[in-house]
């Protein structure tokens, strides 16, 4: 489907939502967020080829919830939201991007009381417009989860998800594999816990397992043949088609980091947030995340990222 058509459909569907009449709409909710981030491996490369960077992201969100049940019970809620963000990178300016998206989420509480388990399902779609236009892509995700409070302080959850990225076909496809390195999908499972350290300070932690297709930097592949990881370009690939042995699904010259490929792999991630609620309308969040992906052919890469954000609800 054409990009413009999909964007129009996204906007039109959001515009039509208030017209739905099978439940009770709650108030609109709008908020803004400013986030500083740091990532030690923005190119997702193996050791010695990692590139780090810092970023600044500004996000605006608008959403609304609807109680879907009959007049007497409020156990099912539909939440619709849209967001737009702009993220600026400090050194790798070509990674700067704008993202616009929407989330459709259903939540169902399975009983009465704080500790009743909550089921959730969500679908999201967003479009990422990157300064390096080869990275432009639609991102879709689906999630099914269940959460349960064990008490007022502790909340546990488990969720399964699937993500699909519909990337562009690069023009520099020089191998028979094609160059859609940003056309990938993977699934995963996440277990999470949220714990109130203080009445206004909450720690969240999660561990995830990933399995599927992952893109990563292949500068190390260029290095032995060309001697210069960022200067060899795809000409080296032609001379030394090592990738053929690796089960690589796509490979292409990267306008930003020299070389990019897509292959099957799996991995895990650890994520923690420390949220300090400043008021009922604002909070500060400190985020620390680690992710390690191992490609099926044996190479692995990892990211450690750190973030600090301020969020305000209007």
């Amino acid at each position, binding site marked *: 489907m054409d990009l413009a058509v999909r964007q129009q459909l996204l906007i039109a569907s959001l515009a039509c939502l208030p017209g739905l009449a099978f439940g009770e709409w709650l108030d609109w909710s709008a908020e803004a967020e400013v986030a500083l981030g740091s990532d030690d491996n923005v190119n997702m490369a193996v050791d010695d080829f990692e590139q780090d960077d810092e970023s600044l992201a500004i996000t605006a969100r608008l959403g609304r919830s609807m109680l879907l049940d009959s007049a007497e019970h409020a156990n099912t809620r539909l939440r619709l939201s849209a967001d737009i963000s702009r993220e600026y990178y400090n050194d790798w300016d070509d990674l700067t991007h704008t993202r616009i998206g929407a989330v459709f989420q259903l939540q169902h*509480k399975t009983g009465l009381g704080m500790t009743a388990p909550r089921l959730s399902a969500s679908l999201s779609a967003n479009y990422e417009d990157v300064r390096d236009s080869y990275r432009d892509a639609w991102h879709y995700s689906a999630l099914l989860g269940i959460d349960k409070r064990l008490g007022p302080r502790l*909340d546990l959850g488990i969720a399964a998800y699937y993500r699909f990225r519909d990337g562009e076909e690069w023009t520099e496809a020089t191998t028979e594999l094609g160059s859609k390195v940003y056309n990938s999908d993977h699934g995963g499972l996440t277990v999470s816990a949220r714990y109130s350290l203080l009445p206004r300070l909450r720690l969240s932690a999660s561990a995830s397992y990933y399995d599927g297709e992952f893109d990563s930097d292949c500068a190390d592949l260029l290095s032995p043949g060309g001697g210069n990881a960022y200067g060899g370009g795809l000409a080296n690939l032609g001379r030394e088609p090592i990738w053929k042995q690796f089960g690589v699904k796509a490979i292409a010259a990267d306008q930003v980091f020299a070389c990019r490929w897509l292959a099957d792999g799996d991995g895990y991630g650890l994520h923690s947030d420390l949220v300090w609620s400043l008021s009922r309308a604002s909070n500060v969040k400190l985020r620390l995340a680690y992710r390690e992906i191992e490609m099926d052919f044996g190479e692995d890469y990892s990211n450690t990222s750190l973030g600090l954000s301020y969020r305000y*609800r209007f």
Partner: protein
Amino acid sequence: MRTLTLVFCILLALPGWSGELRATVVNDKGEAVAEAVVYARSTQGTTAAVGMQRATIDQVDKEFVPALTVVYQGAEVSFPNNDNIRHHVYSFSRGNAFEIPLYADQAAAPVTFANPGVVALGCNVHDWMSAYVFVADTPYFDVTDAAGSATLTALPAGEYEVEVWHVSLRGKPEKLRQTVAIEEGPVALNFSIKQKRVWKAWRGSSEFEEGY
């Protein structure tokens, strides 16, 4: 003569001597404890006649207001909703369990709290909403102010068992029980309680990160 008759009639109408109990509640650090319930039961079983009591617990900005209500057993409590979102009020507390399914504005009927005890309230839409109703089995009670002071008035002369309850009380009120004789004039009592931290479910600042 008419004045003397009036004075005589007033004296006849008055009950026996009634006293006053002034209680102070502090924690084990010596800090004043506000919102503690001080209540006195007559050991002779004498209790003044009490008419139907009514109380109101409002819902404002997705919180119960007030967070503590004290009533005499048999009281009717209404739960108006002043938010522009519906609430679903419930309690699992033994002897006073109830549920008012999703509603806006004024709940259909007030809830009668027939049995003494502590009633913990919640909202099934907003898990962080919590409040307490203390249902007393005596009409003699008061709630401490910011200085930790409570005054029980119009106590008929006699012997009373006085206890204290607070939402953060560590232990049972019976362990704090003091017996006091009420006669003409005020009587002072001091209570020192051990407290524990009381947690409410997390209320997030972001509608997009929070579920129920």
